[in-house]
């Protein structure tokens, strides 16, 4: 990561998000936050810890359990010149608000012929783990990425999360800010104070020449982990952190694939109709001649997420699955592949599959 240096403090991504909110709120009185359970001791993975005490209940507003209303009210306030931030504890709750998000948040600027703008941030939590099952652990980012007028961002690293959140709050558009719940525990070197990370698109986070992996959010960490062990066996993988799903900027991805000739995408959600499908289509259209192998899409299989840990083995595209896919696409022989897999297994020996792997603590 270009943001964050050895001199910076190492903090969790959850703390980085809290700092992003605090920095923005301290600078601009037109900001306010809606959430359910602002006084909840868990404070949304710590991202809202102490926020109420610092900014007061005029700025940190307890939202009734009414998601569509909350988004509509926030859109109305944004049109009137405020900068609301809304936090939902699970992406699923945003489904109750899809009408306001799609019809009003996304389209008001357009329909008004540019007369209104909607500076609004909607924080949504996706993810996995601890048996949360089919309606508490989905990754639904493609739904939001579908709509022109919305910006959709998915930070993977703590420093980026803070800088992107500040940029999102200062942006004059509705920004869907998607946080993977396991990333809240990850750590990274995060600069102090106010800074912005532009909402400008993908970044190379691990350089390589044999294959390009395009991933989002938590999957970026799995991909980096796979790239690390593949490097040990002489396979050089470039990992691209998507960061911004919309507006879609495929240029850095196309440039990378022109170099590597191979493309693997990882969705945190379903493979079908996912982000990967869009990336594969864009890259294939732009750089068909330079592809040395058919692109591969990884992601979730075509069924809902079961609660029992007995059923989720192999459900998520983890580093092992990524290593296998890269070896297939690049043509790495079984001996080198198995060596890479053994190296991975050694690192995550005896760990349960339903809690965050300590690997993801970082710092990155």
């Amino acid at each position, binding site marked *: 990561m270009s943001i964050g240096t050895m001199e910076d403090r190492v903090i969790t991504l959850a703390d980085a998000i809290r700092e992003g909110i605090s920095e923005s709120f301290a600078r601009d009185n037109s900001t*306010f936050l809606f959430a359910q359970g602002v006084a909840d001791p868990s404070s949304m993975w710590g991202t809202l810890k102490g926020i109420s005490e610092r900014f007061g209940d*005029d700025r940190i507003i307890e*939202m*009734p359990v*009414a998601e*569509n*209303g*909350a*988004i*509509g*009210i*926030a*859109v*109305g*306030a*944004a*049109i*009137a*010149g*405020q900068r609301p931030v809304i936090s939902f504890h699970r992406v699923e709750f945003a489904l109750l608000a899809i*009408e*306001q998000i799609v*019809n*009003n948040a996304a389209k*008001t*600027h*357009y*329909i*008004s*012929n*540019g*007369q*209104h*703008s*909607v*500076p609004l941030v909607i924080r949504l939590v996706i993810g996995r783990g601890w048996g949360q099952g089919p309606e508490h652990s989905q990754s639904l980012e493609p739904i939001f990425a579908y709509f*022109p*007028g919305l*910006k959709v961002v998915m930070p993977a690293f703590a420093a980026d999360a803070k800088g992107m959140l500040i940029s999102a709050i200062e942006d*004059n*558009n509705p920004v869907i800010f998607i946080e993977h719940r396991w990333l809240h525990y990850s750590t990274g070197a995060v600069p102090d104070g106010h800074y912005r990370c532009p909402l400008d698109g993908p970044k190379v986070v691990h350089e390589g020449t044999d294959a390009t992996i395009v991933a989002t959010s938590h999957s970026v960490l799995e991909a980096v982990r796979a790239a690390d062990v593949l490097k040990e066996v002489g396979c050089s993988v470039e990992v691209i952190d998507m960061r911004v799903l919309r*507006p879609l900027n495929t240029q850095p991805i196309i440039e990378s694939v022109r170099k590597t000739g191979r493309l693997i995408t990882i969705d945190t959600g379903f493979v079908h109709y996912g982000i990967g499908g869009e990336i594969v289509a864009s890259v294939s259209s732009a750089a068909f001649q330079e592809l040395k192998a058919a692109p591969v899409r990884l992601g979730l299989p075509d069924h809902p997420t079961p609660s029992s840990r007995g059923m989720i083995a192999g459900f998520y595209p983890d580093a092992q699955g990524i290593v296998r896919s890269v070896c297939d696409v690049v043509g790495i022989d079984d001996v080198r592949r198995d060596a890479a897999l053994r190296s991975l297994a050694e690192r995550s020996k005896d760990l349960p599959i339903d809690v965050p792997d300590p690997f993801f603590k970082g710092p990155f």
Partner: protein
Amino acid sequence: MSNIATMVRSQDVTTLGTEQLADFYKKMLRIRLVEEAIAEHYAEGEMRCPVHLSIGQEAAAVGVCEALAPSDKVYSTHRCHAHYLAKGGDLKRMFAEICGKAAGCVGGRGGSMHLMDIEKGVMASIPIVSSSIPIAVGSALADKRMRTGKVTVAFFGDASIEEGVYHESANFASRHKLPVIFVCENNLYSVYTPLHERQPDRPITDVARAHGIKAEHADGNNVEQIFQVTSEAVERARSGYGPTFLLLDTYRWREHCGPNFDNTLGYRSEAEFESWKRRCPLERLRTQLANDSILTSTQEDTIRATIAAEIEEARAFARSTSLPTPQDASTHVYA
């Protein structure tokens, strides 16, 4: 049907000056004539978008908007022509919008269902039932936070209170005592479906009161009474006492969407239609003004001629200006 006009306030309203009443009449007549012009010329094919006419419902728009200050705001629905005009929306830009022209109030992006004139406080018209209600509440939240003293009106129809987001918005507005007025024009039908098929037999005002919101029931065809109840609601809102819900009984004369009458479809009876026509909001005020010798037939003719000329000018403007281009379609996606 017990939902209708059984509990309309009967107490005396403050007597309005005759000049003001005559002005209300002119404003209602202007809306009526604009919409009749739309209906008359619709078949010519220049207005190529759905139109939801407010003919028969003019009193609600004028009575409410006249009680507002110019800086106050309104949010409307698919049936927005009357609200737009009553709040001062530009007529030329309205016709241009309905004709899909670049000079339209939103550049031809919305058509008849998306009229807005921000300068006049017509903030937006949103054609998804109840979708504009939380937006109006958010507007009121912003004004309360910024202490602007402004009031926001959410116009909607009787079906809107069937939507969940209405209740979400009302609950929040009441909890935070926001300066918003919920104006429910009960025209008895959601498209072709009568109220009694959609809602239980109970006063709609009780639904508002259940959210702790003061509710008033007025004759939606009596502009004076509407002005009165709205003025009180505006005063309450500005004084920090929070929202008011106004139930205004009225009737849509023409089809849900389009320029024609549709009684032949059989979803409502000719007798019902005629009974509401007899309660025409314009006719009642015209009679009153004529009886009081405030409005002579010569004056009426002069007013009509002036409005007709304005409409002709607006239509000519809409005809003469250019269509937007395909290049225009991709601008303003992001601010």
